[in-house]
């Protein structure tokens, strides 16, 4: 019985990973540091042997709520309230984006997209598994090994013509 739940968590994690990495790369996060704090994190990642565009990507996630935060908060609110919760979460993420002085609409688009995906997949995978899947997805980028994660993000950015 627990095997089925673990498989659901892993599948939800893969969906969340593809969602926020593709949206963040399309809106141009790996090109340049949006705020000043992201620049020093990118240079630190380069010093330990990683790719600098992946470093800018990680720094922008830390310094302002982007599509990763939108994915997590929209899945939380749609677990608690239903479809209306996702729209409230999108509004609050937009206010948070303005507070951090970061131009761009990546967070709002990410929150609306994951709300639609959860509504379509709700008979198969419940919204509770998407929360654990999002934590698992952010663990593979920010927590596990910084060097290889930045190299992988740099390759994806180069393939989508963002950066270089």
């Amino acid at each position, binding site marked *: 019985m627990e095997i089925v739940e673990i498989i659901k968590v892993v599948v939800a994690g893969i969906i969340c990973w593809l969602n926020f990495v593709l949206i963040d790369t399309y809106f141009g996060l790996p090109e340049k540091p949006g705020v000043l704090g992201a620049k020093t994190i990118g240079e630190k990642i380069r010093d330990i042997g990683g790719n600098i565009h992946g470093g800018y990507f990680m720094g922008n996630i830390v310094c302002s709520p982007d599509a990763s935060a939108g994915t997590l908060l929209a899945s939380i609110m749609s677990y608690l309230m239903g479809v209306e919760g996702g729209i409230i979460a999108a509004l609050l993420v937009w206010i948070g984006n303005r507070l951090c002085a970061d131009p761009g609409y990546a967070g709002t688009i990410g929150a609306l997209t994951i709300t639609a995906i959860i509504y379509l997949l709700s008979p198969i995978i419940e919204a509770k598994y998407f929360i654990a899947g999002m934590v698992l997805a*952010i663990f593979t980028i920010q927590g596990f090994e910084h060097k290889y994660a930045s190299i992988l993000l740099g390759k994806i950015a180069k393939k989508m013509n963002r950066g270089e």
Partner: protein
Amino acid sequence: MDIVEIIIGVIALLMAIRIFLTRSRARKLLYLCCLSFCISALIALYVDSPMGGIVAITYFVCSTLSSNAIAYTIEQAKDIE
């Protein structure tokens, strides 16, 4: 105990130990961001009502604002030193 809470709890415990042991200043911020994701998910799973969602969103946005200020200060302090 649910299987979902156990997975998030193990990741949060691992992050709390790695923040304590890492020596670099910039890499501590990356681990702190991951821990903030975990705590925000645990709050929403523990308080099972819409007010818990509001608390989770407020906590996450304020935590991001705090780490933005720390990263800005590391850049400024490097110039002075």
